């Protein structure tokens, strides 16, 4: 290989490998920005969509999958969290497509097929031409083994799409997971290319100062990041959300204020009855639909007992039960749902509800954020009221979350800022130029630098 070739090969911008589809051929049920993103993702062949909740990831996935099916004639598999699969079937129907809900390879029909992540081992990944991961950030919550299994299973699938909410820009592992799933670059390669590792902890990585702009250019070459349509230069229009009102309720409790994590847990246990009683009273005096989030199993039990018409979904329930309860709640057949954000907090459309209460708070901002987004999302017409009920002794829980939220907003803005310029350009066209080395002057060799008059 000559040197020029080698250098070309070193450039990490992924060449488009998919299909050119005219915008007019994309389902008119999609918004303009959604059409452009689908068009771009088809052009790339393998892409990630990091889009804020409620921006229509399911629709874009279904449309992308449908086009891959039409263009390749092969089957497409969508993997989604539990209950989201059934919801996606409905989304597909709204676009005029049949999405087959499957439990194993035997159920697969030509076209679009969907199952939940837990069923993956009943399928033959090699038989699909396209794969879509819905809520792909779920890769994070699986053990390394399952994560690797998902990545390896589809290593030979020609067309791949991963969709998830915008990760925090410093969540490099998440971006690495996606790059690896898409076959763009392995996570370890990504780390050594763009990151330095300093400090004593082997899990901490920092973007190399030089690599910052290059890193985001690289991410933008295979992933699109947006929080709202205007991030890519479109009108926000229907995506403007109704107000979100967060009410902080501090229940009086005995004991010293918690300082450490352990003390906070203890304070939560001690104040459980008071918090549950407050929540039950608040809810029972209304006829509204409520979503109630807790953190401990004891909270879950107590809440279900105290709240009229409450249905509980907990980790130990069978998947079929969980799925039915979530879908019934989404359809308005259940008026009060008690669960943890780690179980029902992802992917579901609960716009039917505009009131929720957190009786126990998980310390994960992402989970709380996702939980709120079940109701406060595109399609919600009423203001959303969120009650956060904590005990006096728990300390500044809400403040902590608000700080994390602000951090997250800042980081996402940063990420959008980095990628939007590159993206809005590449989403509309498809090629970018990457010339940086501009050597145009002939080399001058000084008089004093001459070959020695000797045979070599």
């Amino acid at each position: 290989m000559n040197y020029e070739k080698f250098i070309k090969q070193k450039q990490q911008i992924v060449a488009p490998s998919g299909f050119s589809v005219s915008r007019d051929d994309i389902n008119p049920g999609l918004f303009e920005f959604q059409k452009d993103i689908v068009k771009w993702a088809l052009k790339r062949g393998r892409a990630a969509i990091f889009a804020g909740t409620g921006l229509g990831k399911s629709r874009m996935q279904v449309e992308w999958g449908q086009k891959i099916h039409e263009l390749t004639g092969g089957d497409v598999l969508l993997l989604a969290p539990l209950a989201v699969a059934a919801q996606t079937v409905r989304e597909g129907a709204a676009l005029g497509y049949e999405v087959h809900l499957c439990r194993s390879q035997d159920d697969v029909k030509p076209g679009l097929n969907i199952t939940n992540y837990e069923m993956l081992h009943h399928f033959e990944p090699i038989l699909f031409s396209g794969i879509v991961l819905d809520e792909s950030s779920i890769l994070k919550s699986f053990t390394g083994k399952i994560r690797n299994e998902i990545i390896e299973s589809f290593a030979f699938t020609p067309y791949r799409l991963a969709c998830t909410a915008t990760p925090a820009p410093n969540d490099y592992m998440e971006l690495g997971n996606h790059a690896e799933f898409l076959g763009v670059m392995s996570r370890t390669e990504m780390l050594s290319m763009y990151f330095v590792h300093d400090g004593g902890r082997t899990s901490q990585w920092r973007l190399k100062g030089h690599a910052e702009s290059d890193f985001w250019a690289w991410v933008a070459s295979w992933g699109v990041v947006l929080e709202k349509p205007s991030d890519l230069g479109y009108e926000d229009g229907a995506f403007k959300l109704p107000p979100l009102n967060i009410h902080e309720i501090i229940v009086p409790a005995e004991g010293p204020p918690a300082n450490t994590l352990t003390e906070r847990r203890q304070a939560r246990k001690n104040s459980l009855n008071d918090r549950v009683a407050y929540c039950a009273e608040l809810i029972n005096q209304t006829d509204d639909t409520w979503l109630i989030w807790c953190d401990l199993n004891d909270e879950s039990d107590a809440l279900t007992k105290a709240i009229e018409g409450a249905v509980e979904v907990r980790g130990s329930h069978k998947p079929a039960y969980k799925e039915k309860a979530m879908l019934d709640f989404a359809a308005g057949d259940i008026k009060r749902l008690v669960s943890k954000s780690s179980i029902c907090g992802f992917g579901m459309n609960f716009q039917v509800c505009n009131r929720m209460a957190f009786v126990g708070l998980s310390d994960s901002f992402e989970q709380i954020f996702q939980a709120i987004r079940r109701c406060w999302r595109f399609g919600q017409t009423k203001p959303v009221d969120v009650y956060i009920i904590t005990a006096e002794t728990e300390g500044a829980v809400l403040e902590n979350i608000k700080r994390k939220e602000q951090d997250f907003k800042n980081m996402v803005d940063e990420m959008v800022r980095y990628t939007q310029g590159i993206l809005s350009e590449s989403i509309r066209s498809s090629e970018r130029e990457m010339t940086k080395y501009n050597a145009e002057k002939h080399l001058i060799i000084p008089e004093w630098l001459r070959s020695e008059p000797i045979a070599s």
Partner: protein
Amino acid sequence: MNPLQVNTVDQVITEEYALYLGDCVEVTKGLPDNSIHYSIFSPPFSSLYTYSNNERDMGNSRNDEEFMEHFRYLISELYRVTIPGRLVSFHCMDIPAMKSRDGFIGIKDFSGSLLRMFINNNFIYHSKTVIWKDPLVEATRTKALGLLHKQIVKDSAMCRQGLPDYLITVRKPGDNPEPVSHPDGFSRFYGENEPEAPKTKPTLKDSQKHKTISLAKTDPVYSHHVWRRYASPVWMDIRQTNTLQYRSAREEKDEKHICPLQLDVIARGVELWSNPGDVVFSPFMGIGSEGYQAVLMGRRFVGIELKESYFKIAANNLKMAVDELNEIDELLS
């Protein structure tokens, strides 16, 4: 033979030095065959540090294999431009292997890999010296698990020694057309704790008689002591902080250039392996440490740098070397 006509981004050519802003593989292709008397440089240490976001930067490699592949292009050019019988010194260290990147905690034999590449490209393994480094400094900087005292308490099976620097030297085969001679031995010393001995010119010049004089005896003690220190397989006496000031070369977001080559190391290489007036070469010029020292010592210098901000500082530093040299000349005249 005319070398390939190649291009560079920018260049500064004077009587004493030629500095090129460009890709070192490309630019070296443009240098004449057998034109370099001695090379000394510190290459990027695989992907340990990154100096720029250019894919032509060897520090921008996805893995060690890609780095080595990139570096190999340079070695074959280095071989071509080096005068037969003359030397190339490279400064390097071994690289800690990390669990998340390499899958294990340990050390990667980076110095060995580099040396093997030179050998595979027909160079002869000529010498190696270890440059001592304080393990406490390394432990403080890197927090490497194997160097922390608490690890001794926990499980010393994971404890290790600090990582030194190496100056490894290889030789292009063939007869050296111009011997590098030191007829009066060494009259100066680069490093810490200069040997205490009269710097008189040796009166005994007969090598037969030298044989009978032990190093501990009188005449010519100074040069012998210096040589004993330079010839040491471990250099304990390098002034670690004696580096060309680099702070000004950094752009706002640059990573710190944390491994500048100490001027003492360069000076020893230049003194030992080149004659005054010879051409010293560095394909990874950085801010010009090798050039600065070589010019101060009356050599000519050819340097290549990919990063514009470093290149500009190097040009200033080389000019400074010439000015300093002229001042000394004026003082002496």
